[in-house]
């Protein structure tokens, strides 16, 4: 857990940390932590100015997002707050920079079933972040969490808001990436070709590397 900045138990069942991108992650299995939220536009911006990647003109991956203040969060804005429009290679570069990786399907299922369907996960993560007084980055993620909590959204609903597609992955890299809405819906299977494909309506989550 090389990038863990701080950790604190909120309750015996859930343990949170704030990762180096400034977003909360929750423990879901053994020593694995997964981001409470899909990767936000704010985290990706941090990746851009920290790494200044040559491959990425910064406006391109952000084109799919409309900037607005997290304080003015409304339900119809939710889609724009999470990072979409990346291919698998770019998503992996992001994940690697912050010492994370994209979850496997098995990990995603585990996190989804054990954590994301819980209604209080957003509130617990928000409470945890507010306790970290010394954290200065990323204040916008905190505001976003407050907005989501204010709107009464639970974590599993964010997937639905971001995309209506379901992806399943049979091999690494797990391109575009993670969304799971229900077992009834079938999804597009993406393999290595996903590196070349962008999906405008999907976000992604990461787990912290062990």
């Amino acid at each position, binding site marked *: 857990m090389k990038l863990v900045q701080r950790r604190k138990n909120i309750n015996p069942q859930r343990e949170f940390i704030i990762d180096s991108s400034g977003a909360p992650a929750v423990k879901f299995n053994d020593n694995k932590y997964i981001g409470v939220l899909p990767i936000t536009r704010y985290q990706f911006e941090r990746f851009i*100015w920290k790494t200044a990647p040559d491959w990425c003109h*910064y406006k391109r991956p952000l084109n799919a997002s409309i900037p607005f203040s997290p304080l003015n969060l409304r339900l119809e804005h939710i889609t724009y707050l999470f990072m979409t429009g990346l291919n698998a290679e770019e998503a992996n570069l992001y994940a690697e920079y912050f010492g994370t990786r994209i979850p496997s399907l098995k990990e995603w299922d585990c996190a989804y079933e054990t954590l994301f369907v819980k209604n209080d996960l957003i509130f617990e993560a928000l409470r945890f972040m507010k306790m970290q007084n010394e954290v200065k980055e990323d204040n916008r993620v905190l505001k976003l969490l407050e907005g989501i909590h204010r709107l009464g959204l639970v974590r599993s609903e964010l997937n639905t808001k971001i995309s209506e597609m379901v992806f399943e992955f049979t091999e690494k890299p797990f391109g575009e990436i993670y969304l799971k809405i229900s077992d009834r819906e079938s999804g597009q299977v993406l393999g290595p070709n996903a590196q070349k494909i962008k999906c405008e309506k999907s976000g992604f989550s990461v787990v912290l590397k062990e």
Partner: protein
Amino acid sequence: MKLYVKDNKLESSRLELRRAGVFLCFDASQPNVDDIYNYFDSKRQHFKIPFICGILGFEEQINALPGRNNISKLIVSRKIIQRGRFLTPIVENLFCKISDKDSDLVLIHSGSICDLADWQDEIKAKFVKVYQYDTENLEPLFEDLQKQWDHELFNFAINDISLCLEDGLIYDYYPDDFEVKIDKAKCIFTRLYNENYANVDFKVYGFNPKVKILLDITLNESPHKTSEIVDICSIQPQDNELSKVLIESSAKEFSELVSAYKAQKISPCPFCGEAHDFSVAFFCDKKRKHRFDFARHIVFSEIESEINNDSQYVIFHQKNNLIYFQVNKRRLSPITPNRFIIVAQKLPPIQVNISSKIEFCEMAQIYAGLFYDQYDTYVLVLR
């Protein structure tokens, strides 16, 4: 417009009037980045204002260090252009270096700033004004931009200043080149400036723990000339032993006297018992010329206007923290500073001629005990 107060308790207080500081954030894709920095740096020196500079997408402050003209090299080496137009690194790392409402934010960029909307609340709380220059579709010459900034940002001049002293003040020293006048029971100092900044040094003594000074400053800020009450500042009284003793011992009695005086504008003169319309004004200055001019102005202008034909005067001086009254040229018993207010009020009516050597004048409330300067001789003016 920004007012800074530096309070040196041992010497004097200083009011520093400045244009608000500049917090400059510019886009590294701009041409002439070195010129932009140098322009604002020179303005900072000329206006003597705080200045912080950052590059969008870059969290470090650009300092006025040797080699500052090589911002272009910095941009290349740190790949700043690829970092993009993001304000967040600056917000997180540099906003904390300025006080709230201390500076204007100047944004110069070519194209939209991706995260500007995220920080509107912080910007509103932190800065006096925001000046934004998006040059994406303009491609202006740097000289044109300079003219625009000269007109919009740095067309700042202080035309004149007036300091109005609230009650309970004594000026032991007043700023050079200020004209003094009494208006509406206040002592007002005015001076024409027409400069980009102003420093006003003075000493203030008073009976209140903090003394209010009302500043009225006429500015020549683009596009209109405006006059406004800028600020009210509080300045601690000077902390020398004598004034401290006087202030502590006399504060209560003085407050009561002032309250009583304000309650009944027409008060019986403690010397003659007749009702007089006391003005509220007081002046003291160690500078002989100023003191004499002021005294002459107060006394003779009143005599000339025939509003003060029943004035009476008491000559006294202080020595070794004791006050010696001289009535009809005869020295009275010394009175301690703590007691002199009361005793003065109990003095019987006296008749004293106008001194040809007026060194100190007071109009009405001098008997309330507002003077303390030892080793000096004064004349009380009682009406």
